[in-house]
């Protein structure tokens, strides 16, 4: 049964997560909207608490339930322990929830994989990924959904200490990763960042466009340099 859920995840739109030094970035592929449909009613990046947020790939309806439970748990934790959740704690909670549904009667597993990002109380940035079977791992950078493999390969090649040296660079890395698989460029990318001690910030499409043009320019410059090297 878990395999079907994992298949559902593979059909979902791509999401990528990057853990920088002072910033964590989540990027998702925005599905093209029908003409009559209002934009922005489908949000794939959601806050779980002031300092934690997540993106998912897979069945949106299932995700809604998981997100709701996670939000409640974040507040319950604040009530009983008088401290905000750590990213690991809430990931563990979500993963345990998912696992429970793989082992009980009459229920089917949640058809989503989640990327959970945030900062712990001590200021460390974290990125975790969960899958329908209920396992979770910490990552420096990861991608889920359709074409996750391509994006992950890109990240494996390009995630270096330089690439995440500044906040801006980390954001650009996320965009670059998504551009590999997304069709028409900046318009189909939704990006969100959390900086230490600041709440989630969704980047506006203008900002994304600017960054995309910057990236394309950098690419051209790179290509130019290579050409010059070859000719000399």
């Amino acid at each position, binding site marked *: 049964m878990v395999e079907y859920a994992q298949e559902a995840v593979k059909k979902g739109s791509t999401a990528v997560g990057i853990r920088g030094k002072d910033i964590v970035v989540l990027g998702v592929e925005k599905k093209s909207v029908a003409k009559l449909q209002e934009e922005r009613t489908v949000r794939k990046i959601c806050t779980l608490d002031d300092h934690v947020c997540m993106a998912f790939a897979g069945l949106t309806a299932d995700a809604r339930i998981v997100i709701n439970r996670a939000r409640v748990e974040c507040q319950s934790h604040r009530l009983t*322990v*008088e401290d905000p959740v750590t990213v690991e704690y809430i990931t563990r909670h979500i993963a345990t929830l998912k696992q429970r549904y793989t082992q009980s009667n009459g229920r089917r597993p949640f058809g989503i994989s989640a990327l959970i990002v945030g900062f712990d109380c001590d200021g460390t940035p974290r990125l975790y990924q969960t899958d329908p079977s209920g396992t979770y791992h910490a990552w420096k950078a990861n991608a889920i959904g359709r074409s996750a493999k391509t994006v992950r390969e890109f990240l494996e090649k390009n995630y270096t200490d330089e690439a995440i040296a500044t906040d801006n660079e980390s954001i650009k890395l996320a965009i670059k990763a998504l551009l590999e698989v997304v069709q028409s460029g900046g318009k189909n990318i939704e990006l969100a960042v959390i900086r230490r001690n600041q709440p989630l910030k969704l980047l506006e499409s203008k900002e994304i466009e600017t960054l995309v043009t910057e990236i394309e320019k950098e690419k051209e410059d790179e290509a130019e340099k290579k050409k010059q090297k070859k000719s000399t």
Partner: protein
Amino acid sequence: MALASVLQSESVDFSNYGRQRHGFASGLYEAELGLESVGGDRLSFALSTSCSNEDGPDRKIEFLHGTTTLAFKFQHGVIVAVDSRATAGSYIASQTVKKVIEINPYLLGTMAGGAADCSFWERLLARQCRVYELRNKERISVAAASKLLANMVYQYKGMGLSMGTMVCGWDKTGPGLYYVDSEGNRVCGDLFAVGSGSMYAYGIVDSGLKQKDLTVEEACDLGRRAIYQATYRDAYSGGQVNLYHVHSEGWTRVSQSDVLMLHQQYQAEKA
């Protein structure tokens, strides 16, 4: 605390408590019931007696509200000082009761009220704290531990639990001190004294804490002195003074001093 006005009607029943215990000298009731009205009808730190035991004249369960326990925060952690006398009416049941419960190497709980209630729930708390530590790979905070205890006993509110404890420890936010009781109170503070001798203890500690920066030695002496003075005046406190110091590495058992020895020592100092 609007709830107190609702509870007032319940606490009136405590006057019936006297009638049940007619096995003991009746003259003492007034003295015992006097314990309840500390600090008005609101948060009474002197533990109010619970009328759960309809056992009739032969009350075998010892309640430790005839006691003095105190804890205060200072620059280098928390000092916890307790006496060791248990009384059943005018009968001194024991002079060597351990009123400090070692929850784990960095958390302490004091005991006032029902000895069984205190030790049982604090052992349960120790178990919860350990599970938390294993699951989350870090020590539990004093706030969380006291919250767990408070929530556990709150479920039994009104069913006759009698427990007034101070949860003391050191966590990543520094020294922590919480007062938790079976009524559902959970209060954070810098200084608490619980029991029939608490007023005498407060007097000593309040005057001693005027200077802000106490050394460990001075703070221990203050705690010891406060319990001694309480045992001097309060008939229901006595025995030995058990002193603990909670610091960043955990708690240490500083001393166990017989009150009579302390009396001679202080008398000699006066001369």
